[in-house]
């Protein structure tokens, strides 16, 4: 799990253009969206869906479904672990 969390942090920084953010800056349990945290928005959510599809073979058709899954890096990692084929 720890390994996956670190990998995800790197992928988020890369794919979401989080310039000047390092993996160490991201608290795995802090909210990704909204004020505070990384302040991600709806376009980032769509990009995270693509990260899951392309790197982990996981499809999320309805973006609204992502709310709980995308809460934090940790919830994301847990979802991937549970659903990866």
């Amino acid at each position: 799990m720890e390994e996956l969390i670190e990998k995800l942090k790197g992928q988020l920084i890369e794919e979401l253009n989080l310039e000047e953010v390092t993996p160490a800056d991201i608290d795995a349990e802090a909210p990704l969206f909204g004020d505070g945290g990384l302040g991600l928005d709806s376009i980032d959510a769509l990009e995270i869906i693509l990260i899951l599809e392309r790197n982990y073979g996981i499809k999320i058709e309805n973006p609204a479904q992502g709310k709980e899954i995308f809460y934090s890096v940790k919830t994301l990692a847990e979802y991937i672990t549970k659903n990866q084929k």
Partner: protein
Amino acid sequence: MSTYITADCIISPLGIGTKQNLKAMEQCRSGIALQTNQLVADTEIMASVFANATNIDGYTKLESLIFSAIDNVVATSGISLTDKHTAVILSTTKGNVELLAQSTTCINPKAYLWNVAQTIDEHYHLANQTIVLSNACISGVSAMVVAKRLIDAGDFDSVVVVGADVLSHFITSGFLSFKSLSANRCLPFDARRNGLNLGEACGALVVSNRKTQGSICLRGGAISNDANHISGPSRTGYELNLAIRQAMAEAKIDVADISFVDTHGTATVYNDEMESKAVGLAELANKPVQSLKPYFGHTLGASGVIEAIVCVNELKTGLLYGTLGFEQTGTPITLNVSAQHQTLPMNSCVKTASGFGGCNAAIVLSVNDGATAELEQTENEIIASVEISNGVVTKNGEQIFANSEADFATFIREAHKQLGEANMKFFKMDDMSKLGYVAAEVLLQGIAFEPEKMGIVLSNSASSIDTDLRHQELINAGDADASPAVFVYTLANVVIGEICIKHKIKGENTFFVSRNYNRQWLHHYAQIAMQKQQMNYCIVGWCNLQSNNYNAIFELVKK
């Protein structure tokens, strides 16, 4: 001064000419069908696509459509395009963008929007250069607002507004990446709605200061910005409501005079939600409300024009077309939507549009004449100016930052850093938006204003070409490789959206494309816009970027 719609022509998969289109609508026919031949998308999508369009020799599909529509309205209105009192405004989001698929290293010049304008100029030997307005999905309605304003200012007697967009993998892949397409025919305002359908079409109409038998009066128009998000609509609908109210105020029309509202109504969950709130705030929730998207799909730069043409004809005939498929309200504010056509006593209507970059536009059309207030002849007062080019940022003629870095990305990062502004979103913007964002940041330092009293009118020649190429390169391997974070910046006006979000600017916002910076004309237009929308300030400028060649010239003007 009064302005009238004196000729109109819709060319869509439903038919050639307004008559054929209205006939199809009367019969509840839709142009939307399952596209299985992979011409416009890798996967099967529901869209309204021309089955067998024949191009005019030497011209693209888009250009051929534009010529057919212009020919039609010129013939029926009898105006002369070579007359210096006639202008043409082209409303398009992406022009001939499908040509980028040929090569992203050797760009076909026709892929530039200014080139489409030049093609029109040469084809008709126009007295005035075609004005290109590219402001996402409000382009068509905005073009009508601009046409009216230029006539009101006495610049022209007649303006041909032509709106056109065609579908290609470029466009469909982007919307697919946004997960905003429905697998079925779209259901605006319905509880079951789950996305939009794309469509292609071309519409042309003539706005004139001369009334003709039975012509409908274009009585008012306004444009606003949500200042909320570049792709997600306003949470409150306040800003679209603002545009509606300003358009009605210019038209001197009360709620009681409105017979119906023709919305943007794309059938995405969030768009329709926002629109219902806006219509409610404008106190129009009880009026018959329609969306024409189930007939034509979302035809982007053509949508505002062809839908306004339908409104014009509805006002003339008294027949209001139903919103096909509508069954049960699914918006926070319940609107008066009907699937069935109905006959109504007609007075006036409101037509709206909203789009990426947070933009909204509204016009008021009426069977009754109404003159709008005279414009004053005044000069803009220039408050501040900023220029960014060749590694140097100057404010009011003085150099405030310089960096010898040849690479734009490095230069603009350093320039932004020097501003001491910590906005994480900056790094997500495309290069053109970063350029405009930094220019506006420097320009507005120490300036206080009310959100609705400030507008932005920008122009450039390259539109969003760098980001268009990036998107094209991604999808060269397949539509599924599109990135929503890239695609959203394939609209030049998104730079205005970024500036509006940062500085809470909610007034007029319009993006023009021209080969060279026509500073004097843009200042002239900004002056008219400030008077029309009671704004005190406007940012006027040029924001152009193509492969490390960049130039921003921003001026803050006061009415």
